[in-house]
């Protein structure tokens, strides 16, 4: 068959149109719907991030079930400390008002490690106006107790001076500072 004088042009134009159509279809297919909603990104990604599950619910969420500890905590010197910091996040403990897991209670040496995260005087970077620090074991020696004593043997962890103040009131003897 004899090709017409412009058949090569027709072929090229056809190829370009086909290429464009395939390209456009692929782009439409691969680009997410919300892409370009706010800018050069998928707009729905913002809501995806906002929908992330919360695992910390704050101190107020502990109050309804753990009233005794919560009340002592709110009145004491440790009021600004998050329950979840020492005990673990709410997400591992409760869901939709139901208990789903037990948070481990710190015991023994763990308690001391936890207390000294904030109260260790040896780290000379803790402003005195922010926090009361103690040197170990000098603090125990000064209080005339065994150096193997753990912090929670004198200090109630939720309100560290609660029983010490009480004892001072009853006995009339001041324990002295730090």
């Amino acid at each position: 068959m004899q090709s017409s004088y412009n058949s090569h042009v027709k072929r090229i134009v056809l190829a370009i149109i086909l290429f464009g159509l395939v390209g456009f279809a692929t782009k439409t297919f691969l680009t997410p719907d919300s892409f370009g909603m706010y800018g050069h990104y998928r707009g729905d990604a913002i809501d995806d991030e906002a929908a992330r599950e919360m695992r910390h619910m704050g101190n107020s969420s502990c109050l309804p079930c753990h009233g005794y500890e919560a009340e002592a905590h709110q009145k004491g010197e440790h009021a600004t400390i998050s329950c979840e910091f020492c005990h673990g996040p709410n997400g591992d403990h409760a869901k939709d008002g139901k208990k789903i897991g037990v948070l481990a209670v710190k015991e023994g040496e763990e308690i001391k490690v936890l207390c000294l995260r904030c109260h260790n005087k040896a780290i000379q970077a803790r402003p005195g106006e922010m926090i009361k620090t103690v040197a170990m074991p000098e603090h125990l020696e000064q209080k005339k107790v065994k150096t193997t004593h753990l912090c929670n043997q004198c200090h109630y962890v939720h309100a560290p001076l609660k029983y010490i103040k009480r004892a001072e009131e009853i006995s009339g003897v001041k324990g002295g500072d730090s």
Partner: protein
Amino acid sequence: MKIKENSLKNHDRRTFIKKVLKGTISGSLLLVIPAGADVGKPEVGNGPMKGKQFVFIVDVTRCIGCGSCCVADKREYQVPDGYYRTWVERYIKDIDDEVFVDSPNGGVDGYQEPRTDLKRPVRDTFFIPKLCNMCQKPSCVQVCPVGATFRSPDGFVLIDHERCVGCAYCIQACPYSVRFLHPVSKTAGKCTWCYHRVRKGLLPVCVEVCPVKARKFGDMNDKSSEVYKLLSGPGVITVLKKEMGNKPSLFYKDARREVV
């Protein structure tokens, strides 16, 4: 010959320059007049985000380096060991003003022991918490080849974990090294200022758990907020690596000049 003269007359220098000028002026007008790029864009979220400009302030003089923030952050996002969305650095200045910086396990375990490897007496020690700077001109967003990281209309630099291909350009581009490649999802990860909490009207979790209020978060457009009072009042307020021009929304109160 007559025809040639005519065409020369039509295309003389005068009309040519006129045409070029017209083209240039109308072309540049296109750049100056906004072409409706921001018109008709939907509002993000509702309630808590409307008309707000969030900033984060770290008060260096208050931080005691307990690491509560690092622990809470690790738990909130279940960050694998060895990766940190936020971390606390310890700066030590000795008597000769030499600076030593360390951050064992990112401060997650707190600072239990003083440094024993320093030869000269210590003059000053302080803690510097680090997190995403939420730059107004984020270089991480600029380099992303697939549009997987972006600055949302409410000012948060976020990551689209569905689109991220894990090329790690953004990790190299971030001047503050806050990004990392998540070992499980193989996508970029970083601090989001707890966007999911802020959208619900809550504070970021590190701010919530800080026992000494060293971390502050709030809305600059709210004239009664603590952050507005701090940033509009006197006192030393700095940003990290200002010369990079990223315009961070994270500010440090009373940070020493050694802090980078």
